[in-house]
C-alpha cells in the first residue's frame, strides 16, 4: 500500500482520534459522531454497544472504510484512512477487513465455497488454486467442512452466518467487523456463533462486534458504549464463556 504510515504503537490495529461525522440533511446539519477517540489492539474482542441513534452504524461504516469521517483521524493497521481515494479504500477493505452482516448477505444460488472465495476474487495476487485452498480452510475453521457445495437456501440461518464468517476470515484480515451478527438468530444459535467468535479470538483474531444486546456483549473482552455520538464508557468485560452459556440453556429441542 502506498504511503504507509507506521505508527509508534505497533499493537494498535485501529486508532481513531477525535472522529467526527456530520450529515447534511436538507438545510440541517446532523452530528452523528461528535469526536470519538479510542484504540483497538491486536487480539482484542471488542463489542461496540449503543441504542439506536447512538452512532454505532456511522462508526461501523467509517471503521469499515465504507464512509469517510468529516474530521479527525482514523488509522487501520497503521494506515491513515482519511483522504484516501475510493479505489484505495476498496483495497483496504479487501486486504485488511472482514465483514459479517446481520442478514448474512450471501450470494443466492452460489455454493458456500464460492461465497467464501468472493473476497479473493478481487485480489489479483491470489491464484485460482490458492483461492480454493484458502476458502476450504476458512470453511473448516467455522465447522462447515462437509457443507462446502451447499447453496445458501440449503443451509440454516446459523450455518449461513458461519459461511459469512468464513468469508470474513478468508482474506486473513487484521480485523473482523461484525454488525449485529446474531441479530437474526435465536438464542441457542446466537450462543453458538458467539462461541465460534470466542474460538477465533483465542486463535488471535481481532474482532469488533457491534450489538445492542448486553447478553451478547458479555462474551467479548471489552465494551465501548456509545451515546449520542460520544463514547460514554469504555470498560473491560468480565468475559463469560459462550460454550458454557450454551450448556446452561434449557434443552427444549423436542418441540
Amino acid at each position, binding site marked *: 500500500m502506498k504511503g504507509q504510515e507506521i505508527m509508534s504503537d505497533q499493537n494498535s490495529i485501529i486508532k481513531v482520534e477525535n472522529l467526527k461525522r456530520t450529515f447534511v440533511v436538507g438545510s440541517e446539519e446532523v452530528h452523528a459522531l461528535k469526536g470519538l477517540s479510542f484504540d483497538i489492539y491486536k487480539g482484542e474482542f471488542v463489542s461496540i454497544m449503543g441504542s439506536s441513534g447512538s452512532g454505532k452504524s456511522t462508526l461501523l461504516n467509517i471503521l469499515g472504510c465504507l464512509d469517510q469521517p468529516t474530521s479527525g483521524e482514523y488509522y487501520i493497521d497503521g494506515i491513515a484512512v482519511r483522504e484516501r481515494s475510493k479505489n484505495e479504500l476498496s*483495497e483496504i477493505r479487501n486486504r485488511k477487513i472482514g465483514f459479517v452482516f446481520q442478514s448474512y*448477505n450471501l*450470494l443466492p444460488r452460489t455454493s458456500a465455497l464460492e461465497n467464501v472465495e468472493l473476497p479473493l476474487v478481487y485480489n*489479483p495476487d491470489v491464484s485460482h488454486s490458492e483461492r480454493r485452498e484458502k476458502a476450504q480452510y476458512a470453511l473448516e475453521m467455522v465447522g462447515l467442512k462437509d457443507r462446502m457445495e451447499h447453496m445458501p437456501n440449503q443451509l440454516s440461518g446459523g450455518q449461513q452466518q458461519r459461511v459469512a464468517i468464513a468469508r470474513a476470515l478468508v482474506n486473513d484480515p487484521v480485523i473482523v467487523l461484525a454488525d449485529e451478527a446474531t441479530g437474526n438468530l435465536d438464542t441457542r444459535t446466537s450462543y453458538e456463533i458467539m462461541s465460534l467468535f470466542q474460538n477465533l479470538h483465542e486463535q488471535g483474531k481481532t474482532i469488533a462486534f457491534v450489538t445492542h444486546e448486553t447478553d451478547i456483549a458479555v462474551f467479548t473482552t471489552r465494551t465501548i458504549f456509545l451515546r449520542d455520538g460520544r463514547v460514554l464508557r469504555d470498560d473491560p468485560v468480565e468475559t463469560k464463556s459462550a460454550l458454557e452459556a450454551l450448556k446452561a440453556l434449557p434443552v427444549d429441542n423436542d418441540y
Partner: protein
Amino acid sequence: MDILNLIRISGKALLRNKTRSALSMLGIVIGIAAVIAVVNLGEGLKQSTANQLSDMGTNLIMVMRSNQRRGGVSMGSSNVQSLKVKDCDAIADCAKNVTMVSPVVSASGQLVNGSKNWSGTAYGGSPDYLAIKKYEIATGVNFTDEDVRKYAKVGLIGQTIVEELFDEDEDPIGKTIRLGSMPIKVIGTLKEKGENNMGMDQDDIIIMPFSTVQKRMLGQDFIQQIVCSAASEDVAEAAVAEIEVILRDMHKIPVGGTDDFDVRTQQEMLEMMNSLTGTITTVLIAIALISLLVGCIGIMNIMYVTVTERTKEIGLRMSIGAKNSAILMQFLTESIILSLIGGILGMILGVGLSYIVAMVMSLPFAVNGVWMIISFVSCAVLGLISGFFPALKASQTDPINALRYE
C-alpha cells in the same frame, strides 16, 4: 481483475437467472437472425441472377438497334432498320476478340403438326447461334452454312414445342411441321433450359437459319439483333470497343455523332439486375436492423432491472473490496456475453432460416461471410452500448445504502 475471472463471475450471474437471460437474449437472436437471413437470401438471389444470365450465353455480347431521332422525332427501336447481315460479317472478319457471331431475326406464327397446334416464335441465326446462346442439341443435328445459303426450311425445336406438337412416343426428327404456311423439317431437338430470370420459357423456341426467317417469312433485309461471344470474360470490354468501331465505320457515323446501335455485355445486364435486387435487399436489411435495435433496448431494459434487483449483491461486492471499475466491468461483461451469445444463436438461426427459404424458393443457398463478421462485431458493440448505462448505474451504487436495501 483478469478477463477470465470477469467472464466467470458474469457467466455465473447470468446462469443464476437462466430464464431471464434467455428471454433478454431473444430480441438479439431474432434481430440478428432476420439480418442474416435477408442478407443470405439477397446473396442467393444475386447468384441465381448470375447463373441464369450466364445460362443465356457464353460471354454474350448483344448488339441492339437503338432508338433514333430523325428531325426531332423518336423512331422507336423496332422501326430502326440499321442492322444488316453485312454488319455481322464485318464483326466476324475484323473483331479479334470475338469468336462467334450470329444475326438474330425472329418471327411468330402458328405451329401446326397434324391436329396439334401451338403459337410459337422462330429465331433465325447462323449455325453458331446455338453455341452463343448455350443451347445444346438433345437429338438430331444443327443446321449448316449450306442451309443458310439455301434458305433451307429446316429447324431445331425446344422441349416445350416437342411436348405441345408431338405425342410422347413420337420422334420429332425428320417430321415436317408448319409454321404459318411454311413447312419446316425438324432436324434436331434442344436440351431443356428452363425459365430465365424474367420468367420467359427458353424452351418455347424454334431455331432456324436466319436467311430462311429473314427472306422467306419476313421478306426484309435488316436484322433485329446481333449476338456475339467474346473470346473470354476478360476481353469482353475490348470486344465491345471493337464492335463499336466496326459498326460506326459500317454505318458511316461521324465522330461525335449518335450511334444507331447499342452494345451490351452480359456483365452490364447482370449489374442492372443486381441493382434492383440490391435495393430490395437494402430495404429488408433496414427493417431487420430495426428489430435488432429493439433487441438491444430489451437487453438494456433487463440490465437496468438486474442492477436494481441486485443492489444488495453490488453492495456486498463493494464492501468486500470490489472497486467501482470492477462492478462496471462485471455488468458490461454480462451484457456483452448476453448479446454475443444471442448474436451467435441468431446467426445459426438466420443461416438455417435462409437455407429453408432458399430450398423452398429453389434459390441457390449462399452465406455472406462479410455480414456474418459484421453481425458478430456489431453484437459486441451493441452489448457494450446497451450495457453501459446500467453498468454505470451499478458502479455508482453507494455500498452503505445498498447493503441495507431490501
